[in-house]
């Protein structure tokens, strides 16, 4: 239904999305022990305005242009500068997975079949130069993201908007995109080519930030993008390696219920070694006392060290981002065409060893479902092939015998050599060890990350058995299940994420049906049921969901970690 070129392009973008999703999750913001404790850090006094917040990061804020950023929910640092039609609810835990209005007065008004979405802008919205924000600016911002020179954003709009697959952006096509209509300066209407009940989630991405046409400098706009949020860019060095933000005087807190904007200044420094970031936050000397990180987790050894230090442990925030690490099967390859073999492996897996390999129970939680364990995703518990805590080799052996392998079998597991504790040798050897007990000899095929990804994303060359992972662009079942199990999203000439190459008309139809729902709760329940149903086929073995542990400096207050991002929200942090 889509043209091949569009598909491959879209897929490439999705590939990036997966990478960035985890980065974005990392980017979204730290918080402290989930919903349970509202504030972390020391000092029980109420957060005050003022001071400088330092952000110590590994990755630079590259291409700081709203058209080019690939974020989950608008990102963490980007969201300080770019307001979007909707945004994520800046609350801890599950409440943080909700979409709330930002520039718009509500999260969007759909027509009957969810193919048309209407938004009205709030009153009193202004850019950093004082000029009012109009619906035309929002439309222009979205149109820019279609320009080839401003690539990088999520692929959804290109796929969803009528004419989105052929539009070339406002520089080549100044007439604009007819499917975005602005009847007046306050109203904007989106016309989609198919029902998309989760459109309000996509409207949180930075492509929905307003861009004044008069100030647009094309690819150079990223050096000084015009702010609509509480901070404006005053310095941007080395493509986002150092970013200094100061207050935008024209931002009216009365129009923004989400961003607290306590610090006067935010200094983002990147290109740092992860161990250095954690060491600096732990030491908290000088400016580092008022520092956070939006992309660096604590590793297992660092956690082991913190374990005995109560003061330090109190400064660790815990968060969950919708993410699943799993073993993927390609049933086109023998012997994985046999469901009994796949089930045997499901039974044999020892999730305790795997979780330990991933950094222990503080950094990973065993998974038996493909969907993350959050209501927003529609989490519906199931464990079709119960392996218990440490695996069930007896049951696995029995299934192997039924499958015609009474003497066990030898298979090869593809994994990456990256030190990421998700698709890395540690996880692979833990799987190997557990399967060995069930008579399955696993040979390991470790590849460097690029060739690993090339192989697992290829329909032609994908092996039968490999480690994989998936994170969602927003907390709902759609972006989690559709790319993995929708038969129409099998990509033959690009990056394919439907590893099982499942093309089941019933599954495809159900995905279409759920996409029509605008009641997100009802949709979530349907996604959960679909996940449970697909799980019966043993097309994958869910292994674990990661948990993020992050340190903050000792003077940092009001740490809020939502389940949307799993990391502290910079817009909520105070340093006074």
């Amino acid at each position, binding site marked *: 239904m889509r043209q091949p070129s569009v598909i491959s392009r879209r897929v490439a973008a999705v590939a990036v999305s997966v990478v960035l999703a985890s980065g974005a999750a990392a980017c979204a913001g730290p918080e402290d022990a989930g919903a349970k404790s509202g504030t972390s850090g020391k000092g029980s006094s109420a957060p005050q305005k003022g001071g400088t917040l330092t952000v110590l990061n590994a990755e630079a804020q590259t291409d700081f242009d709203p058209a080019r950023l690939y974020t989950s929910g608008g990102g963490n640092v980007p969201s300080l500068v770019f307001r979007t039609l909707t945004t994520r609810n800046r609350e801890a835990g599950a409440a943080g997975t909700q979409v709330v209005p930002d520039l718009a007065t509500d999260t969007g008004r759909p027509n009957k079949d969810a193919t048309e979405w209407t938004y009205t802008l709030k009153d009193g919205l202004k850019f950093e130069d004082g000029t009012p924000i109009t619906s035309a600016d929002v439309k222009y911002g979205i149109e820019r993201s279609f320009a080839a020179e401003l690539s990088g954003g999520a692929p959804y709009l290109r796929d969803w908007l009528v004419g989105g697959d052929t539009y070339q952006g406002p520089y080549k096509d100044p007439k604009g995109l007819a499917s975005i209509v602005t009847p007046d300066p306050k109203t904007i209407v989106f016309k989609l080519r198919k029902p998309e009940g989760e459109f309000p989630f996509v409207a949180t991405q930075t492509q929905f930030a307003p861009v004044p046409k008069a100030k647009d400098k094309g690819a150079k706009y990223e050096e000084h993008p015009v702010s609509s949020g509480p901070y404006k860019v005053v310095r941007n060095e080395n493509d986002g390696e150092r970013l200094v933000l100061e207050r935008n005087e024209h931002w009216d807190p009365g129009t923004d219920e989400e961003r607290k904007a306590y610090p006067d200044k935010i200094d983002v420094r990147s290109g740092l070694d992860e161990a250095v970031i954690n060491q600096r936050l732990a030491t908290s000397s000088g400016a580092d006392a008022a520092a956070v990180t939006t992309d660096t987790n604590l590793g297992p050894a660092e*956690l082991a060290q913190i374990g005995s230090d109560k003061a330090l442990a109190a400064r660790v925030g815990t968060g969950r981002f919708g993410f699943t690490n799993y073993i993927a099967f390609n049933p086109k390859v023998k012997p994985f065409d046999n469901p009994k073999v796949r089930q045997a492996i499901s039974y044999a897996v020892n999730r305790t060893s795997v979780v330990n390999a991933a950094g222990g129970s503080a950094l990973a939680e065993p998974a038996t479902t493909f969907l993350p364990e959050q209501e927003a995703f529609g989490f519906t518990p199931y464990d079709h092939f119960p392996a218990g805590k440490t695996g069930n080799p007896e049951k696995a052996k029995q299934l192997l015998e039924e499958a015609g392998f009474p003497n066990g079998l030898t298979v090869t597991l593809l994994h990456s*050599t990256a030190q990421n504790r998700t698709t890395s040798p540690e996880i692979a050897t833990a799987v190997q060890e557990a399967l060995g007990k069930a008579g399955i000899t696993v040979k*390991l095929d470790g590849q460097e990350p690029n060739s690993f990804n090339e192989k697992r994303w290829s329909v032609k060359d994908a092996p039968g058995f490999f480690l994989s992972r998936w994170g969602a662009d927003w907390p709902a079942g759609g972006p989690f299940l559709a790319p993995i199990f929708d038969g129409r999203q099998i990509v033959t000439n690009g990056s394919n994420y439907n590893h099982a190459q499942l093309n089941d008309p019933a599954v495809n139809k159900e995905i279409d049906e759920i996409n029509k729902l605008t009641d997100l709760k009802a949709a979530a329940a349907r996604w959960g049921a679909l996940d449970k149903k697909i799980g019966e086929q043993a097309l994958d073995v869910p292994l674990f969901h990661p948990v993020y542990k992050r340190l903050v400096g000792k003077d940092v207050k009001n740490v809020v970690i939502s389940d949307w991002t799993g990391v502290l929200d910079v817009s909520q942090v105070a340093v006074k």
Partner: protein
Amino acid sequence: MTTPTDTPAPVAGIPATGAARQVWRRLRTRPAALASLAVLLLLVLLALAAPLLAALEGQDAYAYHDDLVDSARGGVPYGSFGGASADHWLGVEPGTGRDLFVRLLYGARISLLVGIGATVVQILIGVLVGLAAGLGNRWVDTVLGRATDVLVALPMLVLAIALTAVVPRDFPRPLLLILVIGFLGWAGTSRIVRAQTLTLKSLDFVAASRLAGSGRWRTARRELLPALAAPVITYAAILVPTNIVVEASLSFLGVGVTPPTPSWGQMLSTAQTWFRADPAYVLLPAGLLFTTVLAFTVLGDAVRTALDPREASRLRVGTRKESSR
């Protein structure tokens, strides 16, 4: 990493017969050399006896022990000194609970096998190329000399990473490492052999052999090779520790032996983040690697001194000084 410039210059011409006995006699008088030798013999013995010792401890190199690590604290082993106990003599690996004693022993096998195997390959190629360059005509000498120069100029580690990455995974990794390190690291040997050969060529006993009607290669085999033994053995003793370090570096970078096969380099790689939380895990492989490399280096130096005819003459006339260490 391949050509120490301060290489021995033992001048050729030591009578081949009795050389070994003579070397041993001189080594015996050096406590450091004897200690190194003892350490190395012990290591080889331990490596060879790894399966026996593993059985004695009652552990194997691959079994996971999830109950021995504190999952809530990143998988750090329970107990002090990395979880050392009567069951696990040197503790267990963080995250997996695999027995460190057995893994270190099996790691010694890889280190010694690759270190010595690669040295054999380097010496074989180096001697052949060096002899051919020294005995061949000007044209042969130039071509081989340039080839050696090119090899010296190549960044060995980078090339080794590239090579080990393209070879199919089924190829036995230790053998692959031996070949890669061996074929990339013979330049130093060949240069020394060539230089020695040129010197020897003009000496009387070689000329006599030629005059007696021996062919070029027969002369090489009968007269030159024995005379080359001293510098070559010396150089080999220096190459072994270098090769062990290269293997460790490659495994450290994830392109050496593949998991779950234990190797010291790989252990160091995973251990580097643990040095505060679980120092034992870092100190054990690091200490073993250090000890092995030091022992080989000290022994190599002692052999060099023992084979040095100038040193020998000093001994004979009683002017012995506590020389180079």
